[in-house]
């Protein structure tokens, strides 16, 4: 049982570390990394709960299925979040450019 406990605690600590990083860090990539670490932590607790040493009974497949879907989803969400982070930077950058241009031009009416 010590294995289950060990991995559960690890998962919990991973979750906590991710949470802390997610809140205090501002860099979007690091936030996304933190979320990934958090999700890994949760999955670890889930799978650890299903673990049984060899020969001591069946492994519960339901958590495995849950984690499997969870991992795939977390990858796709990560991809979306990364893209969004890139877009935030690009659009604000572009925005800056356009404003520069507008400022350089003589003032026109808004419409």
């Amino acid at each position, binding site marked *: *049982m010590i294995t289950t*406990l060990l991995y*559960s*605690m690890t998962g*919990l*600590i991973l*979750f*906590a570390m991710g*949470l*802390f990083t997610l*809140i*205090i*860090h*501002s860099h979007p990539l690091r936030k996304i990394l933190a979320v990934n670490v958090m999700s890994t932590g949760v999955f670890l*607790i889930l799978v650890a*709960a*299903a673990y049984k040493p060899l020969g001591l*009974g*069946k*492994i*519960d*497949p*339901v*958590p*495995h*299925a849950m984690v*499997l*879907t969870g*991992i*795939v*989803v977390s*990858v*796709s*969400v990560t*991809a*979306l979040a990364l*893209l*969004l982070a*890139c*877009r935030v930077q*690009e*659009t604000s*950058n*572009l925005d800056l*450019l356009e404003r520069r241009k507008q400022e350089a031009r003589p003032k026109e009416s808004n419409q």
Partner: protein
Amino acid sequence: MRTEEKIITRSRNRHKRLDAFQRILLLLVICLTTLLGSIIWTMPENPPGLADAVALMQEHSGVKSPVTAVLLNFRGYDTLLEVMVLLLAVIGAWSLAKAHFPQQEREANPVQMGVVRLLVPLMFLVAAYLVWQGSHLAGGAFQGGAILGAAGVLMLVTELPCLRAIPAHPLRIGLVLGPLIFVGVALFCLFLTGDLLGYPEETAGWLILLIEAGCAISIGLTLASLFAGGHPEDERPKNQEQAKGPCKGERP
């Protein structure tokens, strides 16, 4: 908004020392962890689960691997929605930006090309094998799809010129293929047995394999499209001026 700004300014001088807010937060997180940890500590030795229930029904599921049985039969509805989540991620990504390809075609690196030539077919094979063996061993649509996706990423990384020309519509068909097959099979089962995804027992294995194959392709395409980071070149609506399109932010 203000909190965000504060956090940003705070984190600027992060490495000097944790400020009060962060210290309190750290304390809170530690408390939370300790609390939850102690709860896990006190939890019963043999947590209850569904292992026995699943084992009992295993023979009716049409597949030998318990994980696949849960994933595609017992909790197939979950998986259907998960596949939709994947598709959603692609739609979301496509709505954000245009795919990211270099402007001028680069001379293909022969070493890279060699690696790609060697690896990609191998990966396709592995993926097919994983899907196939999913019914009795570890493996299945997600793993196979992931390998396919990795193959796609490999091709994207080498920036094969042919990838630029991938038209949007067939790509979309490929992306939707898996979910459509899934839904189609689900509705088919609804007509047959009166339950959504209630496979008839004798054909369950084949139907599951069909779903897995379709989903593997779609998941592979999904992951590769996500890596490409946007919608394909010709996704832009026709008959419109091209200059100030949706993706004007691509290259300042």
